[in-house]
Protein backbone atom coordinates (compact mmCIF):
# COMPACT_ATOMS: atom_id res chain seq x y z
CA UNK A 1 0.00 0.00 0.00
CA UNK A 2 2.72 2.40 0.99
CA UNK A 3 4.75 1.42 -2.03
CA UNK A 4 1.69 1.99 -4.15
CA UNK A 5 1.30 5.45 -2.76
CA UNK A 6 4.94 6.25 -3.22
CA UNK A 7 4.92 4.90 -6.74
CA UNK A 8 1.88 7.05 -7.46
CA UNK A 9 3.71 9.99 -5.97
CA UNK A 10 6.66 9.40 -8.24
CA UNK A 11 4.63 8.77 -11.39
CA UNK A 12 3.68 11.34 -14.00
CA UNK A 13 0.20 11.49 -12.55
CA UNK A 14 1.68 12.09 -9.16
CA UNK A 15 3.83 14.84 -10.58
CA UNK A 16 0.83 16.49 -12.15
CA UNK A 17 -1.02 16.07 -8.87
CA UNK A 18 1.70 17.75 -6.89
CA UNK A 19 1.69 20.61 -9.34
CA UNK A 20 -2.02 21.27 -8.98
CA UNK A 21 -3.12 22.99 -5.79
CA UNK A 22 -6.74 22.61 -6.86
CA UNK A 23 -6.31 18.86 -7.15
CA UNK A 24 -4.60 18.62 -3.78
CA UNK A 25 -7.23 20.75 -2.10
CA UNK A 26 -10.02 18.75 -3.72
CA UNK A 27 -8.45 15.47 -2.72
CA UNK A 28 -8.11 16.61 0.86
CA UNK A 29 -11.69 17.77 0.85
CA UNK A 30 -12.96 14.51 -0.59
CA UNK A 31 -10.97 12.50 1.92
CA UNK A 32 -12.18 14.62 4.82
CA UNK A 33 -15.80 14.29 3.72
CA UNK A 34 -15.40 10.58 3.11
CA UNK A 35 -13.92 10.04 6.53
CA UNK A 36 -16.57 12.19 8.13
CA UNK A 37 -19.27 10.13 6.47
CA UNK A 38 -17.58 6.85 7.27
CA UNK A 39 -17.04 7.62 10.92
CA UNK A 40 -20.22 9.61 11.40
CA UNK A 41 -21.53 7.42 14.25
CA UNK A 42 -18.38 8.08 16.24
CA UNK A 43 -18.11 11.76 15.43
CA UNK A 44 -21.64 12.99 15.76
CA UNK A 45 -23.28 13.85 19.05
CA UNK A 46 -26.58 12.37 17.91
CA UNK A 47 -27.93 9.66 15.66
CA UNK A 48 -30.43 11.66 13.67
CA UNK A 49 -31.84 8.52 12.06
CA UNK A 50 -33.00 7.22 15.43
CA UNK A 51 -36.27 9.01 16.17
CA UNK A 52 -36.01 8.25 19.88
CA UNK A 53 -32.93 10.44 20.12
CA UNK A 54 -34.77 13.44 18.77
CA UNK A 55 -36.58 16.01 20.79
CA UNK A 56 -39.05 18.12 18.90
CA UNK A 57 -38.55 20.85 21.47
CA UNK A 58 -35.10 21.40 20.01
CA UNK A 59 -36.64 22.33 16.68
CA UNK A 60 -35.13 25.38 15.00
CA UNK A 61 -32.40 25.87 17.58
CA UNK A 62 -29.98 28.35 16.00
CA UNK A 63 -26.30 27.47 15.65
CA UNK A 64 -24.09 28.03 18.67
CA UNK A 65 -26.99 28.99 20.87
CA UNK A 66 -28.49 27.17 23.76
CA UNK A 67 -32.06 26.05 23.27
CA UNK A 68 -34.16 27.75 25.99
CA UNK A 69 -36.49 24.77 26.39
CA UNK A 70 -34.05 21.91 26.54
CA UNK A 71 -30.73 23.64 27.23
CA UNK A 72 -29.28 21.66 24.35
CA UNK A 73 -26.57 23.15 22.20
CA UNK A 74 -25.99 22.62 18.49
CA UNK A 75 -22.95 23.71 16.52
CA UNK A 76 -24.78 24.04 13.22
CA UNK A 77 -28.19 24.46 14.84
CA UNK A 78 -31.10 22.07 14.74
CA UNK A 79 -33.69 21.53 12.05
CA UNK A 80 -37.46 21.52 12.16
CA UNK A 81 -37.51 18.12 13.86
CA UNK A 82 -34.97 19.02 16.48
CA UNK A 83 -32.26 17.12 14.71
CA UNK A 84 -28.71 18.28 15.10
CA UNK A 85 -27.85 19.69 11.68
CA UNK A 86 -24.21 18.72 12.02
CA UNK A 87 -25.04 15.09 12.77
CA UNK A 88 -27.69 15.02 10.10
CA UNK A 89 -25.27 16.34 7.50
CA UNK A 90 -22.75 13.62 8.26
CA UNK A 91 -25.40 10.92 8.20
CA UNK A 92 -26.91 12.49 5.09
CA UNK A 93 -23.49 12.55 3.51
CA UNK A 94 -23.35 8.81 4.06
CA UNK A 95 -26.60 8.31 2.21
CA UNK A 96 -25.62 10.69 -0.57
CA UNK A 97 -22.24 9.09 -1.00
CA UNK A 98 -23.70 5.64 -0.86
CA UNK A 99 -26.32 6.50 -3.45
CA UNK A 100 -23.74 8.26 -5.58
CA UNK A 101 -21.06 5.61 -5.38
CA UNK A 102 -23.39 2.66 -5.80
CA UNK A 103 -25.33 4.34 -8.59
CA UNK A 104 -22.11 5.05 -10.44
CA UNK A 105 -20.92 1.54 -9.74
CA UNK A 106 -24.16 0.17 -11.12
CA UNK A 107 -23.97 2.36 -14.21
CA UNK A 108 -20.31 1.55 -14.57
CA UNK A 109 -20.68 -2.19 -14.40
CA UNK A 110 -23.65 -2.16 -16.73
CA UNK A 111 -22.14 0.33 -19.14
CA UNK A 112 -18.69 -1.20 -19.17
CA UNK A 113 -20.00 -4.71 -19.75
CA UNK A 114 -22.37 -3.67 -22.51
CA UNK A 115 -19.80 -1.36 -24.04
CA UNK A 116 -17.16 -4.06 -24.04
CA UNK A 117 -19.47 -6.54 -25.64
CA UNK A 118 -20.72 -4.03 -28.19
CA UNK A 119 -17.24 -2.91 -29.10
CA UNK A 120 -15.61 -6.29 -29.08
CA UNK A 121 -18.29 -8.40 -30.70
CA UNK A 122 -19.51 -5.68 -33.05
CA UNK A 123 -22.04 -6.26 -35.78
CA UNK A 124 -25.63 -6.85 -34.83
CA UNK A 125 -24.92 -7.13 -31.12
CA UNK A 126 -23.27 -3.74 -31.29
CA UNK A 127 -26.25 -2.24 -33.13
CA UNK A 128 -28.72 -3.58 -30.62
CA UNK A 129 -26.77 -2.37 -27.62
CA UNK A 130 -26.12 1.04 -29.05
CA UNK A 131 -29.72 1.50 -30.17
CA UNK A 132 -30.75 0.58 -26.64
CA UNK A 133 -28.41 3.29 -25.48
CA UNK A 134 -30.16 5.70 -27.83
CA UNK A 135 -33.51 4.76 -26.38
CA UNK A 136 -32.08 5.22 -22.93
CA UNK A 137 -30.96 8.70 -23.87
CA UNK A 138 -34.36 9.39 -25.33
CA UNK A 139 -35.76 8.95 -21.89
CA UNK A 140 -34.34 11.81 -19.83
CA UNK A 141 -32.62 10.75 -16.65
CA UNK A 142 -35.03 12.60 -14.41
CA UNK A 143 -38.03 10.95 -15.97
CA UNK A 144 -36.48 7.51 -15.72
CA UNK A 145 -35.77 8.03 -12.09
CA UNK A 146 -39.22 9.43 -11.40
CA UNK A 147 -40.91 6.52 -13.12
CA UNK A 148 -38.76 3.83 -11.58
CA UNK A 149 -39.32 5.41 -8.26
CA UNK A 150 -43.02 5.37 -8.90
CA UNK A 151 -42.96 1.72 -9.86
CA UNK A 152 -40.90 0.60 -6.94
CA UNK A 153 -43.07 2.52 -4.55
CA UNK A 154 -46.02 0.75 -6.02
CA UNK A 155 -44.52 -2.69 -6.30
CA UNK A 156 -42.51 -2.94 -3.11
CA UNK A 157 -44.34 -4.19 -0.06
CA UNK A 158 -45.36 -1.15 1.92
CA UNK A 159 -43.28 -2.21 4.90
CA UNK A 160 -40.11 -2.08 2.85
CA UNK A 161 -40.72 1.11 0.93
CA UNK A 162 -38.41 3.02 3.16
CA UNK A 163 -35.43 0.77 2.61
CA UNK A 164 -36.37 0.27 -1.01
CA UNK A 165 -36.28 3.99 -1.67
CA UNK A 166 -32.51 4.15 -1.42
CA UNK A 167 -32.00 1.16 -3.69
CA UNK A 168 -34.48 2.51 -6.14
CA UNK A 169 -32.57 5.76 -6.24
CA UNK A 170 -29.38 3.87 -6.87
CA UNK A 171 -30.87 1.83 -9.67
CA UNK A 172 -32.72 4.77 -11.16
CA UNK A 173 -29.71 7.06 -11.21
CA UNK A 174 -27.39 4.26 -12.23
CA UNK A 175 -29.67 3.24 -15.05
CA UNK A 176 -29.65 6.71 -16.49
CA UNK A 177 -25.90 6.71 -16.17
CA UNK A 178 -24.61 3.74 -18.08
CA UNK A 179 -24.63 5.15 -21.57
CA UNK A 180 -21.50 7.33 -21.32
CA UNK A 181 -19.60 4.38 -19.90
CA UNK A 182 -20.84 2.11 -22.63
CA UNK A 183 -19.97 4.61 -25.32
CA UNK A 184 -16.47 5.28 -24.16
CA UNK A 185 -15.72 1.63 -23.47
CA UNK A 186 -17.16 0.62 -26.80
CA UNK A 187 -14.96 3.18 -28.50
CA UNK A 188 -11.92 1.99 -26.59
CA UNK A 189 -12.75 -1.64 -27.27
CA UNK A 190 -13.08 -0.98 -30.97
CA UNK A 191 -9.66 0.65 -30.98
CA UNK A 192 -8.02 -1.84 -28.67
CA UNK A 193 -9.42 -4.98 -30.24
CA UNK A 194 -7.45 -4.26 -33.38
CA UNK A 195 -4.26 -3.71 -31.47
CA UNK A 196 -1.66 -6.36 -31.94
CA UNK A 197 -1.58 -7.36 -28.32
CA UNK A 198 -5.15 -8.57 -28.66
CA UNK A 199 -4.13 -10.60 -31.69
CA UNK A 200 -1.27 -11.97 -29.66
CA UNK A 201 -3.67 -12.95 -26.92
CA UNK A 202 -5.94 -14.67 -29.40
CA UNK A 203 -2.96 -16.42 -30.79
CA UNK A 204 -2.04 -17.52 -27.30
CA UNK A 205 -5.47 -19.11 -27.14
CA UNK A 206 -7.21 -16.69 -24.81
CA UNK A 207 -10.98 -16.71 -24.81
CA UNK A 208 -13.11 -13.64 -25.51
CA UNK A 209 -13.82 -13.07 -21.81
CA UNK A 210 -10.15 -12.95 -20.93
CA UNK A 211 -9.46 -10.67 -23.84
CA UNK A 212 -12.30 -8.32 -23.01
CA UNK A 213 -11.72 -8.07 -19.31
CA UNK A 214 -8.00 -8.67 -18.93
CA UNK A 215 -6.66 -7.08 -22.09
CA UNK A 216 -9.09 -4.47 -23.34
CA UNK A 217 -10.71 -3.23 -20.17
CA UNK A 218 -7.53 -2.23 -18.33
CA UNK A 219 -6.63 -0.05 -21.29
CA UNK A 220 -9.95 1.77 -21.16
CA UNK A 221 -9.62 2.54 -17.48
CA UNK A 222 -8.53 6.14 -17.82
CA UNK A 223 -11.66 7.44 -19.52
CA UNK A 224 -13.77 5.18 -17.31
CA UNK A 225 -12.17 6.70 -14.25
CA UNK A 226 -12.78 10.22 -15.52
CA UNK A 227 -16.39 9.51 -16.37
CA UNK A 228 -16.90 7.75 -13.06
CA UNK A 229 -15.62 10.76 -11.17
CA UNK A 230 -17.79 13.21 -13.03
CA UNK A 231 -20.75 10.82 -12.83
CA UNK A 232 -20.29 10.59 -9.10
CA UNK A 233 -20.72 14.32 -8.76
CA UNK A 234 -23.65 14.25 -11.15
CA UNK A 235 -25.26 11.35 -9.31
CA UNK A 236 -25.04 13.13 -5.99
CA UNK A 237 -26.62 16.21 -7.52
CA UNK A 238 -29.21 14.09 -9.32
CA UNK A 239 -30.20 12.57 -6.02
CA UNK A 240 -30.68 16.06 -4.62
CA UNK A 241 -32.70 17.14 -7.63
CA UNK A 242 -34.93 14.09 -7.44
CA UNK A 243 -35.46 14.80 -3.82
CA UNK A 244 -36.86 18.18 -4.81
CA UNK A 245 -39.40 16.45 -7.01
CA UNK A 246 -40.40 14.31 -4.07
CA UNK A 247 -38.63 11.15 -5.16
CA UNK A 248 -35.64 11.08 -2.89
CA UNK A 249 -34.40 9.57 0.30
CA UNK A 250 -37.08 9.36 2.98
CA UNK A 251 -37.27 12.32 5.38
CA UNK A 252 -36.59 10.12 8.37
CA UNK A 253 -33.28 9.09 6.84
CA UNK A 254 -32.47 12.18 4.86
CA UNK A 255 -29.68 12.47 2.33
CA UNK A 256 -27.96 15.77 1.69
CA UNK A 257 -30.42 16.37 -1.11
CA UNK A 258 -33.42 15.72 1.11
CA UNK A 259 -31.92 18.02 3.71
CA UNK A 260 -31.60 20.76 1.14
CA UNK A 261 -35.12 20.18 -0.08
CA UNK A 262 -36.41 20.46 3.45
CA UNK A 263 -34.06 23.34 4.21
CA UNK A 264 -35.11 25.44 1.24
CA UNK A 265 -38.56 25.71 2.78
CA UNK A 266 -36.90 27.79 5.44
CA UNK A 267 -34.82 29.87 3.06
CA UNK A 268 -36.97 32.94 3.62
CA UNK A 269 -37.93 32.43 7.19
CA UNK A 270 -34.63 33.13 8.90
CA UNK A 271 -33.61 29.58 9.78
CA UNK A 272 -30.83 29.78 7.24
CA UNK A 273 -28.73 27.11 8.86
CA UNK A 274 -31.08 24.30 7.89
CA UNK A 275 -30.38 25.00 4.23
CA UNK A 276 -26.98 26.60 4.36
CA UNK A 277 -24.86 23.91 5.98
CA UNK A 278 -26.16 20.97 3.94
CA UNK A 279 -25.97 23.03 0.74
CA UNK A 280 -22.43 24.07 1.56
CA UNK A 281 -21.47 20.47 2.23
CA UNK A 282 -23.02 19.36 -1.03
CA UNK A 283 -21.29 22.16 -2.88
CA UNK A 284 -17.95 21.29 -1.40
CA UNK A 285 -18.40 17.61 -2.12
CA UNK A 286 -19.56 18.06 -5.69
CA UNK A 287 -17.04 20.78 -6.37
CA UNK A 288 -14.09 18.80 -5.11
CA UNK A 289 -15.17 15.59 -6.85
CA UNK A 290 -15.70 17.53 -10.05
CA UNK A 291 -12.38 19.29 -9.73
CA UNK A 292 -10.67 15.99 -9.19
CA UNK A 293 -12.39 14.64 -12.28
CA UNK A 294 -11.28 17.67 -14.24
CA UNK A 295 -7.76 17.33 -13.11
CA UNK A 296 -7.80 13.61 -13.79
CA UNK A 297 -9.13 14.18 -17.28
CA UNK A 298 -6.25 16.46 -18.10
CA UNK A 299 -3.66 14.42 -16.25
CA UNK A 300 -4.64 11.16 -17.92
CA UNK A 301 -4.83 12.68 -21.36
CA UNK A 302 -1.44 11.85 -22.80
CA UNK A 303 -1.94 14.34 -25.57
CA UNK A 304 -1.85 17.21 -23.14
CA UNK A 305 1.39 16.19 -21.55
CA UNK A 306 4.29 18.30 -22.49
Amino acid at each position, binding site marked *: MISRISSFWASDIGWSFRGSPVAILSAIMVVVLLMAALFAPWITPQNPFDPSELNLANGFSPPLQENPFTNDFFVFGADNQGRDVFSTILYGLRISLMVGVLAVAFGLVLGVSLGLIAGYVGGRVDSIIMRTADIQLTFPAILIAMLIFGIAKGVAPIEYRDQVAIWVLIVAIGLSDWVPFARVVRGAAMVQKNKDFVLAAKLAG*QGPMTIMFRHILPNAMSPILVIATISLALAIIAEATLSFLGVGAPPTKPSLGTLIRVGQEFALSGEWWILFFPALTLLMLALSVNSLGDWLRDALNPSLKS
Partner: protein
Amino acid sequence: MRTPSEFTVPKDRRASDSLVSVLGLSRTFDVSPPFLNRLIERLPKRTLKAVTDVSFNVERGTVFALVGESGSGKTTIGRMVVGLMEPSAGNVLIDGERSGPDSRRGGVQMVFQDPYASLNPRWRVRDIIAEPVVAQGGKATGIAEQLLEKVGLSADDAKLFPHQFSGGQRQRIGIARALASNPKLIVCDEPTSALDVSVQAQVLNLMSDLKDEFGLTYIFISHDLTVVRHMADRIGVLYLGRLVEEAPVEELFTDAKHPYTRMLLEAAPRMDAFGREASIPIGEIPDPISPPPGCAFHPRCPLATEVCRRSVPAMQPVNKGRVACHHAL
Protein backbone atom coordinates in the same frame (compact mmCIF):
# COMPACT_ATOMS: atom_id res chain seq x y z
CA MET B 1 -13.48 -17.88 -61.74
CA ARG B 2 -10.71 -20.34 -62.03
CA THR B 3 -10.34 -23.21 -59.69
CA PRO B 4 -7.33 -22.95 -57.43
CA SER B 5 -4.41 -23.69 -59.66
CA GLU B 6 -2.78 -27.00 -59.13
CA PHE B 7 0.16 -26.15 -57.03
CA THR B 8 3.22 -27.53 -58.58
CA VAL B 9 6.71 -27.44 -57.26
CA PRO B 10 9.82 -28.81 -58.94
CA LYS B 11 10.16 -32.49 -58.37
CA ASP B 12 13.42 -32.30 -56.52
CA ARG B 13 11.85 -30.05 -53.92
CA ARG B 14 8.78 -32.12 -53.37
CA ALA B 15 10.62 -34.65 -51.34
CA SER B 16 12.11 -31.97 -49.20
CA ASP B 17 10.84 -31.31 -45.75
CA SER B 18 8.13 -28.68 -46.05
CA LEU B 19 6.65 -27.37 -42.83
CA VAL B 20 3.99 -25.11 -44.25
CA SER B 21 1.86 -25.76 -47.27
CA VAL B 22 -0.42 -23.01 -48.41
CA LEU B 23 -2.86 -24.38 -50.95
CA GLY B 24 -5.12 -22.22 -53.07
CA LEU B 25 -5.67 -19.81 -50.24
CA SER B 26 -8.33 -17.14 -50.77
CA ARG B 27 -9.99 -14.66 -48.51
CA THR B 28 -12.80 -12.29 -49.34
CA PHE B 29 -14.38 -9.65 -47.13
CA ASP B 30 -17.95 -8.51 -47.47
CA VAL B 31 -17.85 -4.75 -47.81
CA SER B 32 -21.37 -4.41 -49.16
CA PRO B 33 -23.42 -1.47 -48.10
CA PRO B 34 -26.16 -2.39 -45.61
CA PHE B 35 -29.14 -4.34 -46.87
CA LEU B 36 -31.52 -1.39 -46.96
CA ASN B 37 -29.07 0.67 -49.02
CA ARG B 38 -28.73 -2.08 -51.51
CA LEU B 39 -32.45 -2.46 -51.69
CA ILE B 40 -33.27 1.18 -52.23
CA GLU B 41 -30.23 2.54 -53.98
CA ARG B 42 -29.90 -0.64 -56.03
CA LEU B 43 -26.28 -1.03 -55.03
CA PRO B 44 -24.72 -4.42 -55.71
CA LYS B 45 -23.20 -6.64 -53.10
CA ARG B 46 -19.52 -5.88 -52.97
CA THR B 47 -16.67 -8.03 -51.84
CA LEU B 48 -13.06 -7.24 -51.27
CA LYS B 49 -10.77 -10.01 -52.44
CA ALA B 50 -7.91 -9.59 -50.05
CA VAL B 51 -6.22 -12.81 -51.06
CA THR B 52 -6.88 -14.84 -54.19
CA ASP B 53 -5.65 -18.32 -54.85
CA VAL B 54 -2.27 -18.14 -53.18
CA SER B 55 -0.16 -21.28 -52.88
CA PHE B 56 3.35 -21.78 -51.60
CA ASN B 57 5.48 -24.10 -49.50
CA VAL B 58 7.81 -23.21 -46.69
CA GLU B 59 10.59 -25.58 -45.90
CA ARG B 60 11.44 -26.38 -42.38
CA GLY B 61 14.20 -24.20 -41.04
CA THR B 62 14.02 -21.60 -43.78
CA VAL B 63 12.73 -18.06 -44.05
CA PHE B 64 9.98 -17.43 -46.52
CA ALA B 65 9.30 -13.78 -47.18
CA LEU B 66 6.13 -12.22 -48.50
CA VAL B 67 6.62 -8.78 -49.97
CA GLY B 68 4.11 -6.38 -51.37
CA GLU B 69 2.71 -2.92 -50.98
CA SER B 70 -0.33 -1.98 -48.95
CA GLY B 71 -3.40 -3.91 -50.00
CA SER B 72 -1.38 -6.76 -51.39
CA GLY B 73 -2.83 -9.20 -48.85
CA LYS B 74 0.38 -10.13 -47.10
CA THR B 75 -0.93 -9.50 -43.60
CA THR B 76 -4.14 -11.38 -44.38
CA ILE B 77 -2.14 -14.38 -45.49
CA GLY B 78 -0.07 -14.18 -42.32
CA ARG B 79 -3.18 -14.21 -40.18
CA MET B 80 -4.63 -17.16 -42.01
CA VAL B 81 -1.40 -19.07 -41.61
CA VAL B 82 -1.41 -18.61 -37.85
CA GLY B 83 -5.11 -19.43 -37.69
CA LEU B 84 -6.35 -16.02 -36.59
CA MET B 85 -8.50 -15.84 -39.67
CA GLU B 86 -10.45 -18.47 -41.56
CA PRO B 87 -9.72 -18.78 -45.27
CA SER B 88 -12.67 -18.36 -47.64
CA ALA B 89 -11.15 -21.07 -49.76
CA GLY B 90 -8.05 -23.19 -49.72
CA ASN B 91 -6.01 -24.59 -46.90
CA VAL B 92 -3.01 -23.93 -44.79
CA LEU B 93 -1.29 -27.12 -43.73
CA ILE B 94 1.29 -26.97 -41.02
CA ASP B 95 3.14 -30.23 -40.59
CA GLY B 96 0.32 -31.78 -42.53
CA GLU B 97 -2.38 -30.48 -40.26
CA ARG B 98 -4.94 -27.84 -41.08
CA SER B 99 -4.31 -24.52 -39.49
CA GLY B 100 -7.24 -23.08 -37.65
CA PRO B 101 -8.28 -21.83 -34.24
CA ASP B 102 -7.18 -25.16 -32.77
CA SER B 103 -3.73 -24.97 -34.25
CA ARG B 104 -3.06 -22.03 -32.05
CA ARG B 105 -1.92 -24.35 -29.35
CA GLY B 106 1.54 -22.95 -29.47
CA GLY B 107 2.87 -24.46 -32.67
CA VAL B 108 2.58 -21.23 -34.56
CA GLN B 109 3.44 -17.84 -33.21
CA MET B 110 3.64 -14.32 -34.45
CA VAL B 111 5.85 -11.26 -34.07
CA PHE B 112 4.03 -8.06 -34.76
CA GLN B 113 4.91 -4.87 -36.49
CA ASP B 114 4.34 -2.21 -33.87
CA PRO B 115 6.23 -2.91 -30.67
CA TYR B 116 4.12 -0.23 -28.98
CA ALA B 117 0.79 -1.82 -29.84
CA SER B 118 1.68 -5.45 -29.54
CA LEU B 119 2.40 -5.43 -25.83
CA ASN B 120 -0.46 -4.72 -23.47
CA PRO B 121 0.71 -1.58 -21.67
CA ARG B 122 -1.11 -2.63 -18.49
CA TRP B 123 0.63 -5.98 -18.18
CA ARG B 124 3.98 -6.71 -16.68
CA VAL B 125 6.56 -8.12 -19.03
CA ARG B 126 6.54 -11.41 -17.15
CA ASP B 127 2.83 -11.91 -17.76
CA ILE B 128 3.10 -10.84 -21.37
CA ILE B 129 5.78 -13.34 -22.18
CA ALA B 130 4.16 -16.17 -20.27
CA GLU B 131 0.68 -15.58 -21.68
CA PRO B 132 0.84 -18.20 -24.46
CA VAL B 133 1.84 -20.77 -21.88
CA VAL B 134 -0.54 -19.69 -19.15
CA ALA B 135 -3.49 -19.50 -21.54
CA GLN B 136 -2.95 -23.16 -22.33
CA GLY B 137 -2.86 -23.98 -18.66
CA GLY B 138 0.87 -24.59 -18.63
CA LYS B 139 3.30 -23.80 -15.88
CA ALA B 140 5.10 -20.59 -16.60
CA THR B 141 7.42 -20.12 -13.67
CA GLY B 142 10.73 -18.73 -14.76
CA ILE B 143 9.94 -18.88 -18.43
CA ALA B 144 9.85 -15.14 -18.83
CA GLU B 145 13.17 -14.59 -17.10
CA GLN B 146 14.81 -17.29 -19.13
CA LEU B 147 13.53 -15.96 -22.42
CA LEU B 148 14.39 -12.37 -21.54
CA GLU B 149 18.00 -13.36 -21.24
CA LYS B 150 17.73 -15.27 -24.49
CA VAL B 151 16.61 -12.14 -26.33
CA GLY B 152 19.31 -10.00 -24.79
CA LEU B 153 17.45 -8.41 -21.92
CA SER B 154 17.89 -8.99 -18.23
CA ALA B 155 15.79 -11.32 -16.10
CA ASP B 156 15.09 -8.42 -13.78
CA ASP B 157 13.16 -6.74 -16.54
CA ALA B 158 10.32 -9.23 -16.07
CA LYS B 159 8.71 -7.14 -13.39
CA LEU B 160 8.63 -3.96 -15.45
CA PHE B 161 5.94 -2.60 -17.72
CA PRO B 162 6.36 -2.23 -21.49
CA HIS B 163 6.52 1.55 -21.41
CA GLN B 164 9.77 1.30 -19.51
CA PHE B 165 11.50 -0.09 -22.60
CA SER B 166 12.65 1.36 -25.89
CA GLY B 167 11.17 0.23 -29.18
CA GLY B 168 13.90 -2.26 -29.88
CA GLN B 169 13.68 -3.72 -26.42
CA ARG B 170 9.96 -4.08 -26.75
CA GLN B 171 10.35 -5.94 -29.97
CA ARG B 172 12.69 -8.27 -28.15
CA ILE B 173 9.97 -8.84 -25.58
CA GLY B 174 7.57 -9.59 -28.41
CA ILE B 175 9.99 -12.14 -29.75
CA ALA B 176 10.40 -13.69 -26.33
CA ARG B 177 6.64 -14.05 -26.11
CA ALA B 178 6.57 -15.76 -29.49
CA LEU B 179 9.18 -18.19 -28.28
CA ALA B 180 7.43 -19.00 -25.03
CA SER B 181 5.17 -21.69 -26.42
CA ASN B 182 8.01 -23.40 -28.21
CA PRO B 183 6.71 -22.85 -31.72
CA LYS B 184 7.77 -24.48 -34.94
CA LEU B 185 6.78 -21.54 -37.06
CA ILE B 186 6.86 -17.83 -36.39
CA VAL B 187 5.07 -15.44 -38.68
CA CYS B 188 6.87 -12.10 -38.53
CA ASP B 189 4.64 -9.30 -39.69
CA GLU B 190 6.89 -6.37 -40.55
CA PRO B 191 8.85 -6.92 -37.35
CA THR B 192 11.30 -4.08 -37.89
CA SER B 193 9.47 -1.52 -39.94
CA ALA B 194 8.77 0.59 -36.88
CA LEU B 195 12.34 0.47 -35.66
CA ASP B 196 15.30 2.67 -36.27
CA VAL B 197 18.02 1.39 -38.53
CA SER B 198 20.56 0.62 -35.85
CA VAL B 199 17.98 -1.14 -33.76
CA GLN B 200 16.60 -2.93 -36.79
CA ALA B 201 19.97 -4.49 -37.30
CA GLN B 202 20.04 -5.70 -33.72
CA VAL B 203 16.60 -7.24 -33.98
CA LEU B 204 17.24 -8.88 -37.33
CA ASN B 205 20.45 -10.37 -36.01
CA LEU B 206 18.66 -11.63 -32.95
CA MET B 207 16.01 -13.25 -35.09
CA SER B 208 18.61 -14.97 -37.18
CA ASP B 209 20.39 -16.23 -34.11
CA LEU B 210 17.22 -17.57 -32.54
CA LYS B 211 16.22 -19.27 -35.75
CA ASP B 212 19.41 -21.23 -35.67
CA GLU B 213 19.28 -21.93 -32.00
CA PHE B 214 15.68 -23.15 -31.91
CA GLY B 215 15.47 -24.52 -35.42
CA LEU B 216 12.66 -22.15 -36.27
CA THR B 217 10.91 -21.51 -39.52
CA TYR B 218 9.90 -17.95 -40.36
CA ILE B 219 7.34 -16.50 -42.63
CA PHE B 220 8.65 -12.98 -42.94
CA ILE B 221 6.20 -10.33 -44.09
CA SER B 222 7.66 -7.02 -45.20
CA HIS B 223 7.49 -4.22 -47.67
CA ASP B 224 11.19 -3.47 -47.29
CA LEU B 225 13.10 -5.28 -49.98
CA THR B 226 16.49 -4.67 -48.41
CA VAL B 227 15.43 -6.33 -45.19
CA VAL B 228 13.86 -9.19 -47.06
CA ARG B 229 16.94 -9.65 -49.11
CA HIS B 230 18.96 -10.06 -45.96
CA MET B 231 16.61 -12.39 -44.14
CA ALA B 232 14.81 -14.57 -46.64
CA ASP B 233 15.62 -17.82 -48.35
CA ARG B 234 12.69 -17.64 -50.69
CA ILE B 235 10.50 -14.67 -51.50
CA GLY B 236 6.92 -14.43 -52.70
CA VAL B 237 5.84 -11.16 -54.30
CA LEU B 238 2.20 -10.21 -53.88
CA TYR B 239 0.18 -7.75 -55.89
CA LEU B 240 -3.46 -7.07 -55.09
CA GLY B 241 -3.94 -10.33 -53.27
CA ARG B 242 -2.26 -12.56 -55.80
CA LEU B 243 1.13 -14.15 -55.72
CA VAL B 244 2.81 -12.86 -58.87
CA GLU B 245 6.27 -14.28 -58.43
CA GLU B 246 8.05 -16.66 -56.12
CA ALA B 247 11.72 -17.45 -56.20
CA PRO B 248 14.85 -18.00 -54.11
CA VAL B 249 16.22 -14.73 -52.88
CA GLU B 250 19.22 -14.38 -55.13
CA GLU B 251 17.31 -15.35 -58.21
CA LEU B 252 14.66 -12.80 -57.47
CA PHE B 253 17.04 -9.95 -56.89
CA THR B 254 19.26 -10.67 -59.80
CA ASP B 255 16.78 -11.95 -62.32
CA ALA B 256 13.22 -10.99 -61.50
CA LYS B 257 10.74 -12.31 -64.02
CA HIS B 258 7.67 -10.28 -63.24
CA PRO B 259 7.47 -6.63 -64.34
CA TYR B 260 6.00 -5.69 -60.99
CA THR B 261 8.87 -7.23 -59.11
CA ARG B 262 11.19 -5.30 -61.32
CA MET B 263 9.32 -2.10 -60.71
CA LEU B 264 9.54 -2.63 -56.99
CA LEU B 265 13.23 -3.32 -57.11
CA GLU B 266 13.78 -0.30 -59.26
CA ALA B 267 11.71 2.01 -57.10
CA ALA B 268 13.26 1.06 -53.79
CA PRO B 269 15.65 3.70 -52.59
CA ARG B 270 19.20 2.59 -52.63
CA MET B 271 22.11 3.83 -50.67
CA ASP B 272 24.38 3.82 -53.59
CA ALA B 273 22.04 5.65 -55.88
CA PHE B 274 23.33 9.17 -55.44
CA GLY B 275 21.24 11.55 -57.47
CA ARG B 276 19.83 8.65 -59.39
CA GLU B 277 17.00 9.56 -61.69
CA ALA B 278 15.07 6.38 -61.14
CA SER B 279 12.41 5.53 -63.65
CA ILE B 280 9.46 6.58 -61.64
CA PRO B 281 6.72 3.97 -61.38
CA ILE B 282 3.52 4.70 -63.20
CA GLY B 283 0.20 5.00 -61.44
CA GLU B 284 -0.89 3.74 -58.08
CA ILE B 285 -2.23 0.54 -56.66
CA PRO B 286 -5.85 0.15 -57.80
CA ASP B 287 -8.80 -0.11 -55.46
CA PRO B 288 -8.86 -3.76 -54.37
CA ILE B 289 -12.66 -3.76 -54.31
CA SER B 290 -12.79 -3.27 -58.06
CA PRO B 291 -9.46 -4.48 -59.39
CA PRO B 292 -8.71 -4.22 -63.09
CA PRO B 293 -9.77 -7.25 -65.14
CA GLY B 294 -7.22 -9.73 -66.36
CA CYS B 295 -3.79 -9.25 -64.86
CA ALA B 296 -4.34 -6.70 -62.13
CA PHE B 297 -1.01 -5.08 -62.88
CA HIS B 298 -1.71 -4.38 -66.52
CA PRO B 299 -2.61 -0.67 -66.18
CA ARG B 300 0.83 0.01 -64.75
CA CYS B 301 2.75 -2.52 -66.75
CA PRO B 302 5.02 -1.35 -69.55
CA LEU B 303 4.65 -4.72 -71.24
CA ALA B 304 0.90 -5.01 -71.08
CA THR B 305 -0.92 -6.23 -74.15
CA GLU B 306 -4.47 -7.18 -74.98
CA VAL B 307 -4.16 -10.63 -73.40
CA CYS B 308 -3.20 -9.03 -70.06
CA ARG B 309 -6.45 -7.10 -70.05
CA ARG B 310 -8.44 -10.22 -70.66
CA SER B 311 -7.05 -13.13 -68.72
CA VAL B 312 -5.38 -13.69 -65.43
CA PRO B 313 -1.96 -15.22 -66.02
CA ALA B 314 -1.37 -18.64 -64.50
CA MET B 315 1.56 -19.45 -62.29
CA GLN B 316 4.37 -21.06 -64.25
CA PRO B 317 7.61 -22.54 -63.02
CA VAL B 318 10.69 -20.67 -64.14
CA ASN B 319 14.12 -21.79 -63.06
CA LYS B 320 13.92 -22.37 -59.31
CA GLY B 321 10.90 -20.16 -58.95
CA ARG B 322 7.50 -19.44 -60.37
CA VAL B 323 5.94 -16.43 -62.03
CA ALA B 324 2.44 -15.43 -63.07
CA CYS B 325 2.82 -13.24 -66.11
CA HIS B 326 1.85 -13.45 -69.76
CA HIS B 327 5.07 -11.74 -70.69
CA ALA B 328 7.46 -13.02 -68.08
CA LEU B 329 10.90 -11.51 -68.63
